């Protein structure tokens, strides 16, 4: 004979316990409604198994808590990570390009390379019309200074952006290292907890998913969950970042020998950093270069590398037309180099002494002197070797690339500061040596200079080469930046939308809904009350039975 009264009591108590567990879980969900990365949990209730197979009628043994399950979908999490990588890659590019754009402002209210170029050539034409005028000579000098200033300032600002991108890469890699080591230690905790026969380690898994998400914001990676609960993280080329409980810390180095391929050009001199892993603590050959693979992926580091320029085994030029900042800098540099060569050569006039080394100037200033051997523009070079081998004022080695120091844009200046020293006139003789110079009213030299504004020439720096006039090259640069910036805008907007969609899907599955929790709370509260009522009913039944005795 089964004691049903005891059964009733037991089942009622089991019910109360189970509902309490459910209510406690709901409370936890509500408490974590705003916790980032928290995946809501449900308590899985199940009927309690009867002790033994019985011949008697079994009313069941009540309820028990089966497991507390974390509602998280690995594929949705993966999609969120991937869209997150894209979003951060494009948004960092958008940010940098939007800071680059105002340097090429179109309003005409701000001095740009384009406006100072036009003003410079206008001042040349003005002086050609009235060569003896001291005001117009002073104006030419002022416009020339504006031009060199705007070229060097613009170049330096592009260089500063590159430098900033480079530093941010180093900071971000520091964050990556901290995240991978935390993931490795969480792997260890989860493994131990779950191997001990406990249920899933929900809290640590939440934490780990959040860290994976943060990692995806920095770099692209693949991850695989092992059977023991640990997550392994690989880069696209198979390089393992986290394996079980160990993680590998990446290194940011500017030691060229550690780098596979050619170092990207640094616009502000010095050497840009590369991301490597050191297999053997110290020795150069044990460094494995990961820059290329990280650049090919997304995340803020990928985006920054793409902007900054990156090492590439195929690249042998000092300015490669890859990476928006380097591409813009190449164009500025190309303009600076053509100013140095074309303007200087024309300004010095025809070489009257072709047989000898060096350029014999054949133009004359207001005082009848030949102009300085350095022409109209000059450049200062602080390194060991002279860039002007034969002393003719032209950088001889323009054609051959010298890493890191080919930035004439940042060091070019106007040679002249005295208006009377502007050589507007030409030498009247036709053979060597340079002899009688035309008087002050002669503007042949300025005529020759002004013709350069409409002369088509080939602008070459590294792999960038384009033929056109100064104005056309500048306009092409404007258009290049415009396209890069609007492409970055569009990419960033698309990535943002995709990320928002992925985040919505993730939240649809995993995030807490208060409506749902409170509705459930009432349901569970009622169930708890019902179980409590069952105890009273069981008690009444027992009382009735006692009264029978």
């Amino acid at each position, binding site marked *: 004979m089964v004691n049903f009264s005891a059964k009733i009591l037991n089942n009622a108590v089991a019910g109360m316990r189970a509902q309490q567990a459910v209510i406690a879980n709901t409370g936890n969900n509500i408490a974590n*409604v*705003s916790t980032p990365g928290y995946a809501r949990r449900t308590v899985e209730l199940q009927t309690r198994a009867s002790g033994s197979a019985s011949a008697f009628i079994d009313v069941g043994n009540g309820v028990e808590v089966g497991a507390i399950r974390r509602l998280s979908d690995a594929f949705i999490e993966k999609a969120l990570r991937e869209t997150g990588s894209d979003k951060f890659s494009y948004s960092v590019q958008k940010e940098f390009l*939007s800071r680059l*754009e*105002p340097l*090429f402002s*179109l*309003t*005409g209210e701000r001095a740009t390379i*384009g*406006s100072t*170029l*036009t003003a410079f050539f*206008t001042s040349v*034409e*003005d002086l*050609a*019309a*009235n060569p*003896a*005028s001291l005001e117009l000579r002073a104006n030419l000098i002022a416009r020339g200074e504006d031009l060199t200033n705007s070229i060097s300032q613009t170049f330096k600002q592009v260089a500063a952006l590159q430098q900033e991108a480079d530093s941010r890469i180093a900071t971000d890699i520091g964050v990556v290292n901290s995240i991978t080591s935390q993931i490795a230690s969480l792997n260890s905790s989860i493994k131990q907890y779950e191997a001990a026969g406990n249920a899933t380690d929900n809290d640590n898994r939440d934490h780990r998913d959040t860290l994976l998400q943060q990692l995806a914001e920095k770099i692209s990676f693949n991850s695989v969950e092992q059977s023991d609960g640990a997550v392994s993280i690989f880069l696209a080329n198979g390089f393992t970042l986290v394996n079980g409980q160990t993680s590998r810390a990446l290194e940011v180095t500017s030691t060229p020998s550690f780098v596979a391929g050619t170092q990207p050009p640094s616009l502000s001199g010095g050497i840009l950093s590369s991301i490597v892993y050191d297999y053997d603590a110290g020795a150069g050959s044990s460094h494995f270069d990961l820059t290329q693979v990280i650049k090919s992926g997304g995340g803020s580091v990928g985006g920054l590398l793409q902007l900054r320029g990156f090492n590439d085994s195929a690249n042998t030029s000092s300015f490669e037309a890859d990476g928006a900042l380097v591409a813009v800098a190449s164009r500025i540099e190309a303009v600076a180099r053509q100013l140095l060569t074309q303007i200087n050569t024309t300004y010095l006039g025809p070489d009257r002494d072709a047989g000898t080394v060096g350029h014999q100037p054949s133009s004359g200033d207001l005082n009848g002197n030949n102009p300085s051997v350095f022409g109209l523009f000059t450049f200062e070079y602080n390194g060991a070797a002279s860039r002007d081998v034969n002393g003719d004022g032209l950088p001889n080695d323009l054609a051959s690339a010298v890493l890191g120091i080919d930035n004439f844009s940042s060091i070019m200046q106007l040679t002249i500061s005295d208006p009377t020293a502007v050589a507007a*006139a030409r030498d*009247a003789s036709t053979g060597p040596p340079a002899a*009688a110079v*035309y*008087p*002050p*009213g*002669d*503007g042949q030299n300025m005529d020759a200079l*002004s013709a350069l504004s*409409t002369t088509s020439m080939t602008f070459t720096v590294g792999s960038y080469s384009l033929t056109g006039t100064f*104005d056309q090259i*500048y*306009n*092409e640069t*404007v*258009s290049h*930046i*415009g*396209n*890069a*910036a*609007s492409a970055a*805008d569009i990419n960033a907007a698309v990535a943002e939308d995709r990320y*928002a969609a992925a*985040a*919505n899907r993730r*939240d*649809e*599955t*995993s*995030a*807490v*809904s*208060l*409506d*749902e929790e*409170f*509705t459930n709370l009432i349901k569970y509260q009622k169930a708890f009350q019902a179980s409590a009522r069952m105890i009273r009913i069981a008690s009444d039944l027992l009382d009735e039975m006692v009264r029978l005795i």
Partner: protein
Amino acid sequence: MTRISENQKGRTLIDSIAKNRELFNKFSNEISSGYRVVNPGDSKQSATISLFRQTLERVEGYGSRLANVQSSLAFQDDIMLQVNDLMIRAKEIATQAANESNGSETRAQMSAEVFQMRDHLIQLANSRYQGRYIYGGADDDDPPYDTTTAFTFPASGDAATRYVFDAELGTSTTRTVKVTDDLSITTNTVGSTLFDNALYGLERLGRSLAGFATNPAVGAPDGSGDAYTFPGQLTQQTTDIQATLALFDTARESDIMQERVDIGGRMRRLDTASAILELNKASTTDALASLQDADIAESATNLTQAQTALEASMTVSLRILNISILDYL
């Protein structure tokens, strides 16, 4: 059934407010700055806008140079007109003096006026425009006609002073100024081609009247310099005076008239160029405005729409956030 979690609600509301706020800012910036396109990324036509800006700046430069050339040419034309008048007067004097009813003394008195006319001519030939000698070519910082060379056979008084066109380097240079991309205009004429005949005529007339023999064959206007002997050489004096008439005619009809016709031609080309520049400026400004400037009416309409959308998203946010299941439990 789609589950809407608290995170989703929050994100959607924040996103929609942020997007509407961004639009609102964009349109209000358009209205306050007056530009729709500020940076290269704002338009696919950024290179064209940049080109138009350069064109405008160049046109402005051309415009100011063109105006300068115009006023210089007008000035030169005025000089030519004065030289023309001088030549007419000189011819009158020569014709009158050639009449032998004028004795050698009367002729000597007339020479004073001729030498004054010569000085006037030199003043005109040495005219300065904006501080530079117009007829000095490239050598425009000293007078093109000076008295550094004396006659081979010096006479006395005014007749001893000889003006010669400066032979220094650059005096025969003409200068051209670019007034549009395709048009260059010559701004000056070599002084000797304009004034030499006139000067020779006046000097020879003056010297003859003053009583010094002139003989073109020896070197114009450097005659023998010997004084005529009167009355024997009165006829010779008359012949010499008459000989100057041809010089005045040449000066007036070939030199001066031709120069004036030439200046007139250049002025007309400048007028055309000026009109083209104006047209270029106007059309470029219009095109630039249509590419770059904000259409205030459109921007204002957009702003109103953006404002409505922003307010709507805020109202909706408030509504949604205010609904809580707790109010019903």
